[in-house]
Each structure stands twice: as C-alpha cells, then as structure tokens.
C-alpha cells in the first residue's frame, strides 16, 4: 500500500525524523490560510505548493487544464511582496491545481486528479542527497541506500554512475549500527553538525522501516541546509500489505481514490485482480499460472485485459464474483478460463462458471480449459449446461482459440 507524501511526513515527524513544516489543504482558501503560520514559524517568505498524488515525477509533471502549472510550485512572491502576496499567489495556484488533472511520467496519459495539496515552508537548500531503506531480496534483509545525487532518479544513477551509490545491510537483530551510519555520512561527504544530524536521521529511518513494515522508504531529495540541518524534503513510503493488520493507523491512511475500483472489489472478495489494456479477459487459479496465461495470450497474438487469480481454494461464489468483474469490463471481447485444479476441484469451478453465466449473462465468446482434480466431472457440468463454451485441450490451444474468437 502506498500513502501520500504528507502522510509519510506525519509518520516521520512522529518518530523525530526532521521534515519541513507543512499543512494539508483541500480548498484554495485552506491553502491560502496555511501560508501565514508557515511563514511566521519558519521565518522564510518562500512556500511550496505540492500536489498530493501517489505517482512520482510531480515536479516535472503539468496539469492538463493548466499546462503552465506544474505539480509542485515554489512561490517566491513573498520575498518582495510580503505574506499577502504569497497568500494570493498560493490561492491562485491552489484554485488551478485542485480538481485538475496532473500528468506525470508515472501517471500515464490519463493523468491523476489532484484533490489535496500540501503547503510547505521553503527550505534554504545547501545540498540535495538521496536516501532510501528497502528490501534486498537476495540477502533477505533491508538495506540503506544513499547517494550524493539527490533529486535524480536512483535507477538512472545506478545505471550511469553506480559508484555513487552506497549500500549498507541492516542486521534485523541489531538495526543499523553506528559505524554503518557514520560510514554513510562520510560517504556522502557530511561533516560537523550535518554529519551528527544525519546519524540520528538515518538510524531513526532504518528503525522506522522495521517498525512500520515498509517495503520502501525513499527520501529524494534529502536536504542539508546551510546551517547543517538534515531534512526529508520529499517522502515516499510503501507498506507490506500482509503486515497492515498490525498497523491500523497506517491502514487508515489508504486513499481508495488512488486505486482501481475493480481491483478494490476483487480484493474485498479475496481475489487478486489487475486491470490491463487488452481485450481478452482471463480467469485463472494461481498467480504464476495467471501471469503465464497473459503471456500465452500475447504469444499467440492477443492482448490480455486483466490478471485474475482466484486462488487455490476459491468457492463457487468467488468464481462468480470474478466472472462478474470480467464481464462488466467493456473492453473485454472474449474470456479465457484456465484452471489447473490441484486443491481447487474442476467440478466446483465449473459450477461457479455456470452459475455466474446464468446470473450475469454472457455476450462474448468463452473458452474453458480445465485440467487436474475432477476434470471429467467439471467438463461434464459444462457440457450439460448448454452454455456456449468452447473447450480447449491445453492452455496454448485455449489461448489461440479465444484470440481467434475475439477478433
């Protein structure tokens, strides 16, 4: 699960990790009202207006309705014009941003509607660094990754100048050791107050990753101010869904408007579903088989409309829900059911399909491939149902048949 920048900063601040001061605004008036207290608290006339969406690349993204406005705007009019000038500039920007569609490199062409802004104090930046805590799967441990190349995409740094990335493995029994934090500070060229502040920052962040069950915490940029303060200027966090049960406060931060409605419906029915761009709907048991089914459709010249794993022990009701999600998708021109029954019995699956078709109807071709436990009973149920179903011998045969029928 992802959360917004302002939420990530709330979590960090609560752990004593330094972040700039900021206020959330959902209207232009709220945005303007945030200005005065921020300027007074920080003594800095500059404020930053930041769109809150889950996708990255906000600073370089622009609004479809206002191509001259970017997703993150720095407001400097207060330097000469005072707080009133800042307030009116922020109000104007907020009015343009709120309700408009921000298109960034990560949102795709359709963009993302902005319904929340974060108004933040301006920071006098001396250096921009990169810092993250993430899982290193090969070791089965979290690592701290740091780089002097703040503000750049880390993938790009890894490709072009891999020597500029520092990596330190966190022992789960110890946390990030002091000597490791010190080595990172030295590697980043930090000295004096900045180095001291960084040690506290990085250790708190490493501990936070373990305590919050994050998949990823990325601070890009991490900034050092002229007087040696170290702060998270941006903050991205993603959490392990399987651990959310023990973090109800974090689970409450979920923003369902950032998620696909069909994916949410599937999740609440215990199904794993991902919406894609093609026209062949897939209903499969097992994650690996579901991915491979998409691949096979592509291999025979088609395009999958979705990933859908009904799981190992799905009930007839879950199968019916899954079928409903697929048939309601207007881009679906054919459906491929691909089941290798292990724990799941083919007769249960077949009953679920027949029930679902009777409930929701079927207006597109349907190809069913059944294999495994009780396969003959399953095939008999489908044969006797008088449904217009094409049987397939194996998954490649089934994929070829549905791609042909959907043309």
């Amino acid at each position, binding site marked *: 699960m992802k959360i917004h920048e302002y939420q990530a900063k709330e979590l960090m601040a609560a752990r004593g990790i330094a972040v700039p001061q900021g206020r959330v605004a959902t209207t232009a008036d709220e945005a303007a009202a945030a200005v005065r207290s921020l300027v007074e608290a920080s003594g800095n006339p500059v404020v930053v207006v930041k769109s809150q969406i889950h996708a990255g690349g906000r600073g370089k993204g622009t609004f479809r309705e206002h191509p001259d406005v970017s997703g993150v705007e720095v407001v400097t009019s207060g330097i000469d014009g005072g707080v009133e000038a800042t307030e009116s500039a922020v109000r104007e920007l907020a009015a343009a941003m709120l309700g408009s569609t921000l298109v960034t490199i990560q949102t795709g062409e359709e963009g993302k509607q902005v319904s929340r802004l974060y108004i933040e104090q301006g920071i006098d930046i001396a250096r921009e660094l990169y810092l993250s805590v993430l899982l290193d799967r090969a070791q089965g441990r979290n690592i701290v990754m740091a780089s002097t190349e703040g503000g750049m995409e880390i993938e790009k740094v890894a490709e072009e100048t891999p020597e500029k990335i520092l990596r330190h493995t966190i022992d789960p029994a110890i946390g990030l050791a002091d000597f490791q934090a010190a080595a990172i500070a030295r590697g980043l060229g930090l000295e004096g107050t900045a180095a001291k502040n960084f040690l506290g920052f990085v250790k708190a962040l490493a501990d936070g990753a373990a305590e919050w069950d994050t998949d990823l915490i990325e601070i890009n940029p991490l900034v050092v101010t002229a007087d040696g303060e170290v702060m998270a200027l941006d903050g991205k966090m993603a959490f392990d869904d399987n651990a959310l049960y023990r973090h109800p406060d974090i689970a409450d931060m979920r923003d369902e408007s950032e998620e696909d409605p069909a994916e949410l419906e599937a999740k609440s029915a215990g199904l794993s579903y991902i919406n894609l761009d093609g026209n062949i709907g897939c209903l499969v048991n097992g994650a*690996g088989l579901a991915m*491979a089914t998409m691949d096979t459709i592509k291999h025979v010249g088609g395009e999958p409309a979705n990933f859908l794993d009904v799981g190992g022990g799905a009930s007839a009701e879950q199968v019916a829900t899954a079928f409903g999600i697929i048939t309601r998708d207007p881009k679906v021109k054919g459906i491929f059911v691909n089941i290798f029954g292990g724990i799941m019995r083919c007769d249960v699956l077949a009953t679920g399909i027949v029930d679902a078709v009777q409930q929701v109807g079927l207006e597109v071709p349907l190809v069913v491939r059944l294999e495994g436990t009780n396969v003959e009973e399953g095939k008999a149920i489908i044969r006797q149902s008088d449904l217009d179903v094409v049987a397939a011998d194996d998954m490649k045969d089934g994929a070829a048949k549905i791609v042909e029928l959907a043309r």
Partner: protein
Amino acid sequence: MSILVDQETRVIIQGLGSTGRFHTEKAIAYGTRMVGAVHPSRAGTTEVFEGETDHSGVPGRDDTYSVELPIFASVAEAVEATGATASVVYVPPPFAADAIMEAGHSGLDLVVAITEGIPVGDMVVAKRYLADKVTRLIGPNCPGVITPRQCKIGIMPGYIHQPGKIGVVSRSGTLTYEAVHQLTRLGLGQTTAVGIGGDPVNGTNFVDVLRLFHEDDDTEGVIMIGEIGGTAEEEAAEFVARHMDKPVAGFIAGTTAPPGKRMGHAGAIVSGGKGTAGAKIAAMEEAGIVVAPTPTDMGSAMVEALG
C-alpha cells in the same frame, strides 16, 4: 534417489486448523509418514485420520488407512517423542514465522512453510534466526515438496506425479503442476518437485535446489520455473553456467506484467526496472537453459534440453 524428502522422512504438522487437517489427511492417504502434530492447547490428546488410500502414492498399502496422530505442546517435544525429521507449517500468517523459528530451534532437517501472507519483516527475522541452524526452510507461500510414491509434504495433487528422472523447482504452485503433468505424460517423471514459494524472502532458493539436483545421481535434467521480481533466476542461471552439466529447461512467467504492479505473489513485481521477465530469460538462455515460450511447451523444452 531423490532430494530433500523420501520414504524415511518423518513429518510433523504445525497448524492443525481446517486447512492443515485437510492436507494432513491427503498426505497420509498418499503414504507420507506423518508422525505427530503441534498444538499447545490440545497437547496430550490425539487426532484420528481415517479414509481411503491414495494408490497414486506409496505402493503396497491396504485400501484404507487409520492413523492416530499424537499432539504435542511444542516442536521440541514432538521431535523428542516421534523422531520427526521434518515439519510442515500451516500456521496462520501472524504466527507463522515464529512457528518456522521453533522448527529451526528443534533441529529438524527440514521445515516446509505453506502459509501465504506472512509479513516480509517477520521472514527477515526468521531467515536470520535460521542462518546458524541446521534446519532448511522451504517456502513460505509454496505448494511444498514431493518425491513421487515416497513422500508428499504440502498441497499439491499427488496423482499427477510419477517417479522418474527430472527435478522440478518453481516459484509458482500451479505452474509446477503444469510441468509435472507434462513430464508424467511424456514418461519422464520426476525425482522430486520443489516449490520454493512466491514471497520476496524465502528459505531455500533456486541455486540451493539446483545444487541438490546436480548432486543427485537419479536426476538427469531439471526444469526451473521462475517469475518476475528479484534476481534469483539470474543467480540460478549463473550457477547453471558455471557448475551444472545436467540439461536444464525453464520458463519465466510475467513477460506481459506491467511494471510496479504486484502480480498475485508478494514477490512478483517489477520495480525500478529490476526483475523483468526479459532480463531473466536472456540470462537463462545465455547459460544454455532451454526456455519454453509458453508453459504448454515446458515438457518439450525439457525433451529438447535432454537432446
């Protein structure tokens, strides 16, 4: 011969809920030597399993079975009393990592964790705990391990397997069944089929299993089935190139998976351009592995690799 499990393997179960009970019944029907269960609140009692023998399993048994499994308060007590060598974990996700560590503490040879949905942070801790223990962990979030007609630990359907000469190792359950089914139809059969699981942090990885198959005299070829996410397949390909002279075939799921989306398995995600199917397939082909274009072709890819 086989790897990891055989007719001598003595198995206890941790997590005797409805799922655990269901699969214990299937394992006993198959002929697996189930010798006990761990369930603190029911320690000192027994659980009776009765039913019809699955004749696709261990040969030479009566048509029905009746087994009374003793229940123990801890893994250590179960091992002491039964001489168990392996354990299978069906414990619910919040408590599963602790169950795995308990198995490690008790000196078992093998713990097979079937549970799906264990927090990654818990597995990071469990993996570190097991680092200096003798116990090998398979999984979690896996179908288990089977040596046909000898021992079935996990949730796979037994009857699709057949003793033979191909080792199977996979991150996906249902794709393992596809491969096994094809090998059985082709008459190649399996020495052992191992599901290493779909989670980002697991116990035994591809390289570990490939090494075991490499050293197993009866295994003449290996099918490895990977998927997007992480770099375990690339490391496996390097191992194959450097150390294996047995033919290897493979398949990678997720060529069409969009980046940044978790495809069902917690570990199946392309992030930051890492873990793509394309990179894995390229590394495997570079290592001389015959990569099947679709899962339907896994069996024929193995035949091709065998030459």
